[in-house]
């Protein structure tokens, strides 16, 4: 049986047994190459689930949809390792109870579909621990290396060109599972902390505020990068920030559901005398 068929059966069983009230997975999209998030609540509909190498979106953000987990019921969700990490970060930041989430795990090493054993975040601890030690496979590594070698002026010019394209559609934020704030700082208008105008300066402000807020929390799922309608290479920022956090604090976001948030925790023996 194909992995897709196995998982459809599993989804059907979970729904039939009443173990979950919903399965969040992938369905066919508008074109042959596209997949889209679908929400299955009846065992009869599980045949609509699709699982293949085009299922790359991180669906964990839907778990924090207002009201979804406010009852005691559980929800199953298709997640890749990045999605499981995101789930851990959400749990560590008290956004949800991971016991309410049944993971249907899979991965796509080199585009090949592979199933992952386990159903609760704790079942994946070893896998995520190993990920921390591995070299991440990022699209655009060459560009990243090129940017590293640039002078500050050149680097500024590079990002200026990129950010000047930003239209402040906030698709990056909306697509990000870690951007769950009920009211984002840029939407807070009493006072208006960050101006809303989408000129180059405003775009810098927005993207830098976001990069800082995601540092140590971003799991590099790529949702923001793929969502950006003007193709700003947000993955490069995410990679850089993740590497900085790893090098400085030995922190890899989302390895466990109780992981201390790196930029929101304070230790008495910390060498710094202040916190931000």
């Amino acid at each position, binding site marked *: 049986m194909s992995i897709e068929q196995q998982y459809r059966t599993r989804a059907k069983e979970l729904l039939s047994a009443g173990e979950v009230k919903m399965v969040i997975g992938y369905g066919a*999209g*508008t*074109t042959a190459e*596209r*997949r*889209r*998030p*679908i*929400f299955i609540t009846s065992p009869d509909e599980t045949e609509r689930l699709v699982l293949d190498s085009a299922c790359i*979106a991180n669906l964990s*953000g*839907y778990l924090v949809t207002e009201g979804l987990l406010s009852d005691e019921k559980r929800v199953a969700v298709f997640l890749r390792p990045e999605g499981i990490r995101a789930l851990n970060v959400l749990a560590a930041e008290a956004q949800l109870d991971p016991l309410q989430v049944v993971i249907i795990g899979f991965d796509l090493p080199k585009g090949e579909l592979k199933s992952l054993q386990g159903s609760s975040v704790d079942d994946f601890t070893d896998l995520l621990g190993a990920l921390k030690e591995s070299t991440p496979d990022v699209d655009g590594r060459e560009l990243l290396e090129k940017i590293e070698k640039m002078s500050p002026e050149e680097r500024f010019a590079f990002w200026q*060109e*990129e950010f000047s*394209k930003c*239209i*402040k*559609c*906030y*698709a990056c*934020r*909306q*697509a990000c599972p870690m951007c769950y704030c009920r009211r984002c700082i840029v*939407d807070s208008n009493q006072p*208006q902390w960050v*101006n*809303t*105008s*989408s*000129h180059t300066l*405003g775009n810098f402000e927005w993207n830098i505020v976001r990069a800082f807020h995601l540092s140590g929390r971003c799991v590099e799922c790529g*949702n923001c990068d*793929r*969502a950006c*309608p*003007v*193709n700003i*290479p947000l993955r490069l920022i995410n990679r850089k920030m993740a590497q900085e956090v790893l090098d400085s604090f030995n922190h890899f976001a989302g390895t466990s559901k109780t992981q201390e948030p790196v930029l929101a925790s304070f230790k008495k023996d910390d060498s710094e005398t202040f916190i931000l």
Partner: protein
Amino acid sequence: MTKILFTDKLDSCVERWRSAGMTVIGPVQRANSSVYDAVKSASELDLNLVLTDRSIKELFFPQSEPMLRYAITKAEINTDEFLPPSGPRIIFGARACDASGLAIDDPLFGWDYKDEYWFQRRNESVIVTIACTKADEFCMCTSLKLSPDSTKGSDILLRPLENNKGWQVEELTDRGREAFKSVADLLQEGSDPAAATVTVPEKFNADACAEWLKNPENFESRFWKEISARCIGCGSCTYLCPTCHCFDIQDEGGSFEGIRRKNWDSCSFALFTMHTSGHNPRSTQSARWRQRIMHKFNYFPGKFSANSCSGCGRCTRECPVDMGITETLQEISKLSQ
């Protein structure tokens, strides 16, 4: 015999227009994204695109536009108005859906208040549209009673030649004729046949949809929740849309000194209808999605006798979760059968 502009003469045209003081604008690539922008020569233009990622509207209604500078002291309040930048422009290589989008929005911007930012730019721009000989699976102008060679909103329509060496020139307005007068000697009379425009299949029945939307019983239909469950509420579909026109007036700076700006806004955002009290009449994404569809295909046509959509397909093409208006209207077409 028709007038023909051969591709190898385009650069001379660009030069001619530029030396006459016109800003020449067209589809170009800018850091991995396509957009309409000013060019110095024809070689910068990317005329092979089905459609630019970003729409033409930003040339008339930019994402952020300064309106006035204010300074408040104990003694007085000073304001300086910013006027829209002035000067003739020629937009070469627009697509029919983009040009139509501008014409769709003209009555809106001129309805109760004449938006001088919009109209000054409209009056100073010549729109040269190239009929489409290719489309992608998201294009749907024909579902909106337009076509790959619609003339709506254009001053000149160019039809690509079958041999790919240039375009037949159709002058549609005085403004278009005027701009092409200056390059008359660069055009040639010829009988080269035009290539067929692309066939864009009809995806839904706009009239049937309008009827369904007008029925008050359907306002609270479960349909809205189901169709929009995956919408994440970003502004991508709004900001890429050539006809979406909502904006927000923002004061940038302090209480006593700053710049008042007109910034794009989107009905997809929760903040769009948030009251000061914290109450939000459109508190769910499905209510916001319904508004988007209702506005485009019910309220707007009710007021201005045209759908607020030209079928460019960008809302579906770029949606991070594979939504967009097409599927919604296809489903409504089915419901209304």
